[in-house]
């Protein structure tokens, strides 16, 4: 049985695989689910059974789903999304057909040869006893509505259609954030394994649901808890049904007065390789000022939140000054930093994180002098730099834009040239994850 690869609801939505992709209830089968998301905190929900998070490996979050004890066939629905991004196109769903095993009690002609067809699957043949009684073991899928029983006696055959009891498949509530926070906007989405229409009825206690948007199998609501509510309960189902298809109870937290404590860095998903680029400026005092560019190659070859980085950069500076009795002279500096650095996260919150960097390396460059009185020359420069920096990153899947503030001591000298192309370096850039593995 092959793995089920679900199409993405949107580029930013998680990608889900399940193994096996079909379940027969009562056989002890459990389903392994892997989810590849953008790197943010992953949320998961199941409409039935028990969904257990197993951690992360090979860049994917692993789950184990244990079906419920019930034997009646149904479609299990799963939803996966990244924290803070509950939207119609940011939630990926997985529908898992769960079949039930049962025995059909059949009354027919004595000694008849009986076969049963349910949803295209055939069972039998078996022969009825002398009284025409027979029990036929069958598997019933969640979409089956009837059983076609064929009894053959001699040259004659009889076909009988028997309706099968239909058990409704449960719906699912996805709520963000969870628990709710009284001072933050909240969202709730009802998802179903079948098309939703105007028959859908939702009910909230201790809260108000404001419908926002919908697609065929999902409806997004704005969730507004009542003032002072400590929990909110949600129900969804068809209006004509007496039993709700989905119910959720969500805690409401009071507003946090104190600032959130700094949390330890979350461990990386595993070995990672990132490339990046940045643009900005440096201000090193005097005419040590100008644009700065950098490209980076970052690798975390160990299961630690620590990257080794190679950075190649360009920094430019120029100025002009009068030369007594002759005219004016201009100087143009181009320095190419070649540096190694270490970067590690010291704080994370959802997709946001703060990284610290430290490093240093060589500076190679050239300075050009030009004048309006016929003088021109160039000088090679060499030097070094040491720096410490803070990066504020926002991880959006494999793409992580950041802002960096760097303090650098840099010195570059050549024949007759002294420059300090460091100081305060401000950069805006991004990291892009090109590979991730454990």
């Amino acid at each position, binding site marked *: 049985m092959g793995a089920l690869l679900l199409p993405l609801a949107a580029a930013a939505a998680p990608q889900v695989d399940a193994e096996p992709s079909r379940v027969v209830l009562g056989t002890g089968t459990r389903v392994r689910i892997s989810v590849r998301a953008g790197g943010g905190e992953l949320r998961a929900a199941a409409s039935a059974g028990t969904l257990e998070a197993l951690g992360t490996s090979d860049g994917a979050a692993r789950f184990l789903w244990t079906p419920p004890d019930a034997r009646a066939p149904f479609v299990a629905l799963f939803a996966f999304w990244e924290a803070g991004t509950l939207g119609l196109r940011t939630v990926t769903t997985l529908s898992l057909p769960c079949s039930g095993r049962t025995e059909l009690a059949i009354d027919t002609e004595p000694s008849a040869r009986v076969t049963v067809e349910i949803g295209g699957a055939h069972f039998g043949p078996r022969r009825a006893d002398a009284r025409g009684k027979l029990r036929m073991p069958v598997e019933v899928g969640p979409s089956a509505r009837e059983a076609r029983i064929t009894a053959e006696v001699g040259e004659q055959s009889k076909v009988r259609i028997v309706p099968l009891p239909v058990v409704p498949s449960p719906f699912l509530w996805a709520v963000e954030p969870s628990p709710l926070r009284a001072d933050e906007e909240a969202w709730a989405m009802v998802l179903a394994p079948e098309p939703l229409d105007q028959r859908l009825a939702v009910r909230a206690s201790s809260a108000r649901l404001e419908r926002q948007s919908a697609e065929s199998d999902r409806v997004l609501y704005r969730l507004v808890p009542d003032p002072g509510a400590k929990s909110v309960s949600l129900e969804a189902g068809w209006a004509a049904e007496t039993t709700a298809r989905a119910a959720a109870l969500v805690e409401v937290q009071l507003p946090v007065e104190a600032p959130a404590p700094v949390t330890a860095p979350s461990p990386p998903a595993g070995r990672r390789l990132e490339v990046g680029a940045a643009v900005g400026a440096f201000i090193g005092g005097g005419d040590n000022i100008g644009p700065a560019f950098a490209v980076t190659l970052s690798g975390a070859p160990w299961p630690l939140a620590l990257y080794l980085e190679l950075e190649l950069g360009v920094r430019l500076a120029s100025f002009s000054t009068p030369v007594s009795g*002759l005219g004016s002279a201009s100087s143009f500096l181009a320095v190419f930093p070649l540096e190694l650095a270490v970067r590690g996260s010291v704080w994370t919150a959802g997709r946001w994180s703060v990284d610290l960097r430290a490093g240093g390396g060589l500076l190679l460059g*050239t300075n050009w002098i030009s004048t309006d009185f016929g*003088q021109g020359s160039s000088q090679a420069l060499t030097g070094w730099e040491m720096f410490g920096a803070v990066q504020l990153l926002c991880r959006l899947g494999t793409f992580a834009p950041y802002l960096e503030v760097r303090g650098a001591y840099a010195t570059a000298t050549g024949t007759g040239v002294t420059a300090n192309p460091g100081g305060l370096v401000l950069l805006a850039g991004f990291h892009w994850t090109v590979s991730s593995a454990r």
Partner: protein
Amino acid sequence: MTGRRPLCLLVLSGCSGGSLPPATITSVTPMVMIASQPTRVEVQVAVELPAEVDYAGESIELQTGMRVSVGPQELGSGSYPPDGLVRGTLATILALGTYDVVAVLADGRRAVRHDAFTVVPGSWPSGYSVDPIANQRSGVPFSATLRATGSNALGFGGNVLLGTSSGATVAPAVSGAFDAGVRVETLTLTGTGQRVLTVTDIAGNSGQSAPFQLSP
């Protein structure tokens, strides 16, 4: 001007010590001078001036000192002129013959163009006279009128050497150029006592003033 070179070459040159390239004299115009006629000369020097660039100090300092001479006579202002083109007028105090043209930079580099300038015979007056000079005070400038005499006097436009008897000095030592045989020169003498002003050209023609009294 060296222009912009590839970075790799610059880095290598930086590792090799980064000394400046030698200066050269690329042209001398004209290359011949008539001994009795002051001549305007242009000397083209190709040189990369020593520079000090300090980005923190926001300064570019160029060592512009450059002395150019034709034989014993200096040309120009003593510093690098725009585009390295040194201009000046040579006085008629060079003896007949050929001379090296030399440029000396402030950092000691030196460019020589051997036998680049030639002085050929000219026409000189047969003598000089000085209009009577009133009594003067030492160190106080005064004017003296110098006149060429004899043949070629009216067309003379050269320079002469000025002197006085021992125990005193006269400045300048070389007069400005005569104009139609006459030169009004502002002089400063130091010393005391009775003096005469002597006028001599390099061809050996001379003259002198009547005695005058130089008081402290």
